[in-house]
């Protein structure tokens, strides 16, 4: 045990004192923020920025006006929402660029006009043309001419607005007045109450989704990162040939255990630093979403994050240690670590379905299969706590698998660390497992 402790201590101190630890500790939160918030912010920015110019072509001016009114109102609502969201996030000081929508109504429905407008769209003078001729209206299918055909969100918003405008218009022609029509279209809000947290201050589903996602990404990146650290550390001992000195003092099992514990402690230290920094920042800046996050960050969640990080780390770092012992160079290590990365990637592929429907078959089995369970079970707990027996079973399966893997990988490790030169083939590795 003394040897394990000494090896772990060396591993820990050498890593924590290194420059790369400092850099990674600073860099990863930025990376995380960029990865999770980046695409969203970017899309929002693209959608919201500047003035959008649409033309509605119709022979009935009332239809055109209705669509125009609806689009303008939708745009105002979206802008307001974006401003609120920004106010909640870190970019509070920066003012939201006010974006507007201009809608012209064109009553010329000739083919020539369509051609002329298409050219304008192509030259980016117009953002879109909604072709609402009588024929199209009758068919309930309006051609929408735009360069931005792939912008799903924008098209969806447009479609909703146009549909609503047309429904309103047809109700108006049936003789209803504006108040009556407004009453018909009054939006009903669903107010989700999370049964898990219960009582007031229950987490907002959007916050739950984003926060779960961020935590899962941290889990995923750290499992990979620390696993690879273990692999490289084994490889370093092998290539620098210190292995032989170490083996004359310590057992391979002790070396493997010490390494895994040491690198794992570095991981926990890093989490502690991030956690402490985050709580200082959120405390100081009176984070607007804090109340919403409060409902999400229950002690149960934080404990399960730690538990499933440790479970996943034990499982993956053991495999990574074996890979490090098998190979002779970084290049070989990269090729061989592909096998270990596969299940983590599979787990991340299951993350989205599991976030959306935590009780689906995919989520259930993903949280039971040992290689994906650290990530998938954590998601399920974050989103909607599954029955205790499932959590228990998942942890038990994971521990049992890790135990088995430790036995197998220790054998590979023991033989592999003394093998220099050529990369072992699969039959050779199987032979190593049989060595007594």
């Amino acid at each position: 045990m003394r040897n394990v402790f000494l090896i772990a201590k060396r591993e820990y101190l050498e890593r924590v004192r290194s420059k790369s630890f400092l850099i990674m500790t600073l860099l990863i939160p930025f990376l995380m923020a960029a990865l999770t918030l980046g695409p969203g912010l970017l899309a929002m920015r693209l959608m919201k920025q500047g003035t959008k110019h649409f033309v509605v072509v119709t022979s009935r001016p009332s239809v055109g006006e209705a669509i125009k009114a609806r689009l303008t109102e939708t745009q105002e609502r979206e802008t307001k929402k974006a401003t609120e969201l920004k106010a909640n996030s870190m970019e509070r000081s920066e003012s939201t660029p006010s974006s507007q929508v201009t809608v012209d109504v064109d009553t010329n429905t000739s083919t020539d006009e369509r051609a002329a407008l298409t050219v304008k769209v192509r030259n980016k003078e117009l953002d879109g043309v909604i072709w609402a001729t009588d024929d199209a209206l009758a068919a309930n299918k309006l051609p929408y001419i735009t360069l931005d055909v792939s912008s799903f969100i924008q098209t969806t918003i447009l479609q909703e607005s146009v549909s609503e405008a047309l429904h309103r218009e047809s109700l108006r022609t049936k003789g209803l007045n504006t108040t009556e029509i407004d009453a018909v279209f009054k939006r009903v809000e669903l107010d989700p109450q999370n049964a898990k947290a219960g009582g007031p201050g229950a987490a907002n589903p959007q916050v739950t989704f984003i926060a779960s996602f961020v935590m899962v990404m941290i889990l995923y990146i750290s499992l990979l990162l620390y696993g690879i650290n273990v692999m490289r550390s084994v490889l370093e001992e092998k290539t620098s040939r210190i292995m032989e000195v170490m083996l004359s003092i310590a057992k391979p099992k002790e070396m493997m255990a010490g390494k895994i514990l040491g690198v794992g402690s570095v991981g926990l230290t890093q989490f502690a630093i991030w956690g402490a920094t985050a709580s200082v920042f959120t405390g100081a800046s009176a984070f607007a979403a804090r109340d919403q996050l409060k409902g999400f960050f229950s002690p149960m969640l934080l404990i399960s994050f730690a538990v499933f990080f440790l479970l996943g780390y034990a499982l993956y770092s053991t495999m990574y240690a074996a890979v490090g012992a098998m190979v002779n160079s970084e290049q070989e290590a990269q090729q061989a670590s592909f096998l270990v990365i596969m299940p983590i990637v599979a787990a991340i592929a299951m993350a989205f379905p599991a976030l959306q429907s935590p009780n689906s078959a995919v989520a259930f089995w993903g949280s039971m299969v040992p290689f994906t369970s650290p990530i998938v079970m954590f998601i399920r707990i974050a989103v909607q706590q599954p029955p205790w027996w499932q959590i228990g079973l998942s942890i038990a399966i994971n521990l049992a698998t890790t135990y088995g893997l430790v036995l197998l990988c220790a054998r590979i490790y023991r033989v592999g660390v003394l093998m220099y030169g050529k990369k072992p083939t699969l039959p050779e590795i199987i032979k190593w497992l049989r060595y007594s």
Partner: protein
Amino acid sequence: MNTIELNKVRKTYDHFVAVDDLSFNIEQGAVFGLLGPNGAGKTSTIRMMIGITAPDSGSINLLGKPFDRKSLHKVGYLPEERGLYKKMKIGDQLTFLGELHGLEKNVARQKAISWCERLEIADWLPKKVEELSKGMQQKIQFIAALLHDPDFIIMDEPFFGLDPVNAGLLKDVLLDLKKQGKTILFSSHRMDQVEKLCDAICLINHGKPVLAGNLKDVKAPYGKNNVQIEYEGDGAFLDHNPLVKAYNNYGNYVEVKLAPGADAQELLRQVAARSRVTRFEVMEPSLEEIFIEVVGKTNA
């Protein structure tokens, strides 16, 4: 008492027999040479002595007891494959290895400092290993093997890659340890070095012993039938001479292997008649010659 006893120790890798029922003992306080050509099984044998690998069959007694990992705290090992943690500072590294060998942290550090002073590298204690030359790294590794004051010291090719000054420094340290009653095992294929230091040897080839025992006993059967001559003048008389079995002209001197039954005095008379003799010495064969002869025979 024997420091280590190997009893019919065998190790095979797949179908390759690395060590073939090898037996030998090393007495306490002896300097023992484990010799053999490359690939003879020297390193495989050493690895089994210190529990890096386990023998397939046979037994090993270490420090008077059947092999037990606890005894390893009294063993120092300098492997042939040298290596240290490249990014670690010398002082930290030696302290760490000392601690692993069972020393307390401050004791380990203190010993590291005094050893580095003795080997004239104390200035390098705060440096990282990667900043050191090969020879210096070798000294560090040498210290790492001795830091915990082991009773049994195993050195695999200890002088490999060292300049004569440093090799001399290390040799003095080893002789000093011998005086203190430590047991030292050398593994080498450099016979000249081993010959100067060892009391006893075991020469192995293909995992089997081909020659073993006290250095004197090993050499005795080969007799004193070598002559070194330094002379001025024509050496042509050595050709086709019935007294000479073979000779090697090294420029400054000639080494002559006498024919069986030939008299060295007769040769001296012949040389003196034809040239000015500055040195004439009858010698026993060097270990290297015996090595080449024996290994050549077993390989044939």
